[in-house]
């Protein structure tokens, strides 16, 4: 996994609640999905008009916000489908951090598998951040410091956020969960040996034929 230590850049305000992963990556785009091209369809229903042209009213199409690295948005962001393509699509657009009052649980988890940092902050703080990010047509620099769990706004305000130590370490060092868990395989084998005695039916399935 790619490391994420210090992030600096523009934050785009998207003040809308319950943006689901079907909006972030529509289902029809999942079929030939790959990490490299998914960004072409990110936010498709919002970002493009019916004729395929860019929607000039969508924040990431506006001058000053096209290179945003942070998204500030409404509550329950990423609810719905488990599709990890939503995270790929955001990463492909250059977004490395999403700030919201709350997130869909599966999306929140998926972010950490792809070096995207989701930050939960209280609703009133989000309202203030949206206002600050919406000022002056973008081009305002926000900074996220993963090691110190701080967000610094263009006005110089510093806000701390919560991040569990394991996730912080994984982001800072770019650790991959599969690699880490493979080290635990002896524990898994011991669990199965013990459990097989207690619940043999879990391991000895019949067949359907």
């Amino acid at each position, binding site marked *: 996994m790619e490391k994420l230590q210090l992030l600096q850049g523009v934050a785009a305000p998207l003040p*809308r*609640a*319950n943006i*689901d992963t*079907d*909006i972030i990556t*529509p*289902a*029809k785009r*999942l*079929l*030939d*999905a790959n990490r490299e091209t998914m960004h072409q369809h990110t936010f*498709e*229903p919002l970002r493009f008009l*019916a004729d395929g042209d860019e929607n000039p009213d969508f924040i990431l199409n506006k001058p000053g916000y096209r290179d945003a690295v942070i998204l500030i948005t*409404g*509550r*329950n962001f990423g*609810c*719905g*489908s*488990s*599709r*990890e*393509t939503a*995270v790929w699509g955001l990463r492909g657009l250059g977004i490395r951090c999403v700030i919201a009052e*709350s*997130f*869909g*649980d*599966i999306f929140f*988890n*998926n972010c950490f*598998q*792809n070096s995207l940092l989701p930050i939960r902050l209280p609703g009133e703080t989000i309202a203030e951040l949206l206002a600050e990010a919406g000022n002056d047509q973008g081009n305002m620099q926000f900074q996220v410091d993963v090691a110190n769990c701080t967000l610094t706004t263009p006005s110089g305000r510093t806000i701390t956020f919560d991040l*569990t*130590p*394991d996730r912080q370490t994984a982001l800072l060092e770019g650790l991959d*969960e*599969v690699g880490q*868990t*493979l080290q*635990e*395989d002896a*524990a*898994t084998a011991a*669990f*199965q040996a013990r*459990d097989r005695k207690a*619940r*043999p*039916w*879990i*391991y*000895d*399935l*019949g*067949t*359907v034929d």
Partner: protein
Amino acid sequence: MSQPTTLFHKLWQAHVVRSLGEDLDLLHVDRHLIHDLSGARALTDLQERGLAVRNPELCIATPDHSISSQPGRTLASSPFGERLGGGLRKMAEAAGIPFFGLDHPNQGIVHVVGPETGFTLPGSLLVCGDSHTSTHGALGALAWGIGSSEVVHVLATQTVRQRRPQTMRITVDGELGQGVEAKDVILHIIGALGVAAGTGHAVEYAGTTIAALDLEGRMTICNLSIEFGARMGMIAPDETTFAYLKDRPLAPKGGAWDQALAQWRGLRSDEGAVFDREVRIDAADIAPQITWGTSPGQTLAITGTIPAPDSFVEAEQRNNTELALEYMGLSGGQPIAGTKVDRVFIGSCTNGRLPDLRRAAAVAQGRTVASHVTAWIVPGSAQVKVAAEAEGLDKIFLDAGFEWREPGCAQCVATNGETVAPGERCVSTSNRNFVGRQGPKARTHLAGPAMAAAAAIAGEITDVRNLTAVAEDK
């Protein structure tokens, strides 16, 4: 005496391989369901990393998302069927994972196949790369949807790293009114609590209403847990559960069945167990539901009025309502009944099981689908289809003018190309009325199978109780 504990806690503790920190555990995965939308890619990722599937015998793979539901279908009948369904076959067989292809009598939607084969068991921990995996909690399993990176993790290690969620119990007591079914119960709950109320929680459903439901109704309830943010929904297993599972092909047999049963009877929240949140719902308050907006929480009693944006005090809710009404082509302040529909879809992992089809058939019997409506019945699995045909349900539907199709996710998620056209209005027994879910600009109204069948007959959103009342008068 030990501390009273919740069903959730018992299920969780039984699967801890190792604690990885405060509230973070490495858990053993007993059951892993794999489908065509992400399966082949996950197995390919694994192979490219030089890793093997650790326990292929604890997995089942079947195509459901990408395949056509057209009668006489092959993998080539949908745009990505060969690539995704065929790809899954190749990768699953190479890995030694049991695979139920299009020609197999157990093919179907993963969340229908798991319970009906007895793959899903009380006390098991089950995951799948699909958010509606919460369905399996209806059997007293600990089950939730995971992302594609986690799918690779489970394939490689047979474990999942998981943070312990908070607990919530939703108790529904009382008898359901005439024409009210499980789908109405859960839509009512989502409408009452809001679409994010369950975030970060594992939900246990309890109470006399839940206990009176058949297993399929309980699956409908648990299935929609994710639609109010809860990754896991569960119901303590009881005699209904055991009767449902007995003699299912992958369920334990003989002495193992007796041994399992003895353990399963202990899978319930103890008297006095404490939940982080408790909610009580009175069954008498629940009417047949229909959604009006673009989020499952935007639901109404069928007798209700579509909300007007200015009826909300909070600016965000006003804004959400305006956006939803515009997308849905509806006006606030109007009754929802009488809204003309173009399509009806009955099926999905929410409502594609035999009792669902029976309820729809009871409404359809002796009636005719309105001439301007295209109405589909898509059984949730090959087993459901065979059982329905043995009862003659297919004949009832065909006689009424419904299409009787092949099992899969079909128009719920429309990844197989079976979309609702832009601007068309569809009453659907599926799980999501999101913007673009059934196709770009498609307008989805979620409801139960009886209400959906009634909409097909009437050609508009209608109260199923009026139709059944007419039938009873005859």
